[in-house]
């Protein structure tokens, strides 16, 4: 397959803070350096973009040393945490902003959907906005005319087509906006998390359309999302970004695994020395172990599993409680649980919490645990996503029975009643 996008040593620096009298002197300095043909002094002081840590410099590299190539017809998912540089990369690719260093080469027409409904004017009718938005996205008028009925049909707002869009419900607005975007005819399509809108039916429609675009029509798609399930469903390849740097590139599935693993070390136990030493509490340890064994033992589907949390509460503990969310390997939340539901409360001082998953509750697979410290049942004092990941292995099965994984993530043991019908 021929290459359609080639990114070489791409980097983008941003200046933090406010612009004002303080920054003008440096601008003059930079211009002066440039005029003399010297290297931009601004770029020498750039630091890796990590928003958690306060740095000494107010220049950060939002992207640095990015290199990749994309072949025609590839659907590539770009994943990474907030601030990893995903949107900056898409902005450069869609020519909204230019890189500080490096270059991007593209073959064919490129259309980007960093947002749906760009340029929609509230006063204009749906019909007028289809034309306006379509031509902003790069369509010719004749092209829109040809597809007009299709667009209206896809959006499902036919009845409102001559009403100003300010009277639309937000859902209808989004439907119309996405409908226009979905009918773009470009060789390369860039999409940034626009699917997080609309109802379930419409999301399904959007995903379906996106799938058609990449699989059926053989166009190249770049897709950014936090929803691992949709990345997995749409993309063949994946690119993981972290702190502006490319961390992993490979198949979509392995990229997702890399991304999720990268957030936490896959061990059944995690001890925190100073990481979570906050004024209100200290989190010492989270671990999982099969009942009667240690955290170094593998968990399997037929054992009772214990979840241990050791936390010291330094303030009044009466209003505090811990909530956990269990996510699957796609990053989708499976369920939320908390000790508060059983009436047990935290105490001031060191608490050792134990939660018991019944035998056979969790199916085989990799799980990710997120933890929240909640005050007064409403305010989140602290949260950490994917603080711990763990694998549940296959248990011993009888020879002759099926060895694979049953569908689903949990397989709870319910109470049953079987009566013989006379």
């Amino acid at each position, binding site marked *: 397959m*021929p290459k359609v996008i080639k990114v070489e040593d791409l980097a983008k620096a*941003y200046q933090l803070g406010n612009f004002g009298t303080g920054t003008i002197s440096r601008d003059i300095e930079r211009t002066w350096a440039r005029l003399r043909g010297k290297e931009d002094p601004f770029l020498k002081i750039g630091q890796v973009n990590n928003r958690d840590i306060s740095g000494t410099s107010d220049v950060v590299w939002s992207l640095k040393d990015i290199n990749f190539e994309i072949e025609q017809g590839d659907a590539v998912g770009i994943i990474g945490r907030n601030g990893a540089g995903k949107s900056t990369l898409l902005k450069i690719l869609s020519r*909204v902003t230019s890189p500080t260093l490096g270059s991007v080469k*593209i073959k*064919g027409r490129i259309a980007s959907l960093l947002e749906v409904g760009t340029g929609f004017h509230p006063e204009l009718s749906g019909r007028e906005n289809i034309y306006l938005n379509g*031509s*902003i996205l790069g369509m010719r*008028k004749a092209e829109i005319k040809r597809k007009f009925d299709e667009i209206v049909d896809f959006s499902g707002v036919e009845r409102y087509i001559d009403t100003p869009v300010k009277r639309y419900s937000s859902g209808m607005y989004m439907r119309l906006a996405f409908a226009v975007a979905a009918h773009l005819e470009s060789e390369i399509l860039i999409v940034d998390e626009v699917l997080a809108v609309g109802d379930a039916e419409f999301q399904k429609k959007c995903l379906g359309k996106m799938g058609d675009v990449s699989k059926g029509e053989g166009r190249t798609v770049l897709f950014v999302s936090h929803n691992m399930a949709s990345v997995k469903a749409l993309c063949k390849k994946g690119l993981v970004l972290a702190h502006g740097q490319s961390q992993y590139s490979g198949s979509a599935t392995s990229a997702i695994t890399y991304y999720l693993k990268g957030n936490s070390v896959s061990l059944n136990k995690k001890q925190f020395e100073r990481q979570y030493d906050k004024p209100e509490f200290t989190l010492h340890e989270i671990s999982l172990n099969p009942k009667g064994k240690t955290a170094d033992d593998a968990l399997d589907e037929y054992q009772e599993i214990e979840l241990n949390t050791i936390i010291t509460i330094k303030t009044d503990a009466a209003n505090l409680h811990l909530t956990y969310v269990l996510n699957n390997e796609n990053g989708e939340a499976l369920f939320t649980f908390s000790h508060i539901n059983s009436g047990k409360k935290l105490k001031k001082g060191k608490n050792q919490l134990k939660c018991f998953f019944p035998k056979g509750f969790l199916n085989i697979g990799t799980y990710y645990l997120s933890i929240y410290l909640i005050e007064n049942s409403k305010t989140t004092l602290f949260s950490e996503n994917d603080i711990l990941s763990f694998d549940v292995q296959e248990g011993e099965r009888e020879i002759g029975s099926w060895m694979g994984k049953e569908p689903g993530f949990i397989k709870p043991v319910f109470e049953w009643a079987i009566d013989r019908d006379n």
Partner: protein
Amino acid sequence: MSLPTDDHWDIEISAQSTPFRLGLKDVWQYRDLLWLLVRRDFVSFYKQTIFGPIWFFVQPVITLLIYVLVFNNLAQIGTDATPPALFYLAGIVIWNYFSDCLSKTSTVFKDNASILGKVYFPRLIMPLSIILSNLVRFGIQFLLFIILLIVYTLKGASIAPNLYILLFPFLLFLIAAQGLGLGMIISSVTTKYRDLAFVVTFGIPLLMYTTTVIYPLSTAIVKHPALSLFIKFNPITAVLETFRYGFTGKGYMSWQLLGYSSFITMIILLAGIIIFNKVEKSFIDTI
């Protein structure tokens, strides 16, 4: 499988810019968008009004009345033997077009940051659409001027339209280019530091007094010979005076002055486009 290594790329994005690539070909590709934006501006202006496009007439008519009352009757500024209403309206029509173009294009990046930050299209489309949609408003006001001209001619006022009327399209181009060029320069230099934007807001109304909107150049030359030099070298003056001369037969017509004005205008326009094209690539980072 060996593919022929073709090194042809349609789009190359890099940090370097080529200052003299004006990108007019791209603009032509997007001409439908230009047209739709003009239409949007025009239509959204009078949406949900009862009188619709009639509102375009109201502003110049009221302005005209006040000018006649204040400058002519109260301040006794002569109008070169032209009927005052006609004299002022000629000034108002041209001046309004210039100042509308200038003030709107000077904030084009700021006003459209939400669109420009999300989608790529030739950025030049945006200021051009402003020039064109203001042209629609200009056309309506110009119509008013023509009506007044006919009314005065029928009443037998001393009006002598002449061949210089044929310069009208060129004059229109000059005034648009001045507004566009200056506006683009201002919008480009205000993407990072907005100080100049304040100057523009109070500067444009004041700028009107540096050209011959409310007084004829001949009066200025007689009363203030030194000051009139500055007025003459304001590139708008030549346009205004030629416009008046062509349509009413009164005014200061000079080919030298018009030539000078055209020269300055081209410099402003070119500088505007070049600076604009340089800034547009990454203005979104600092706006």
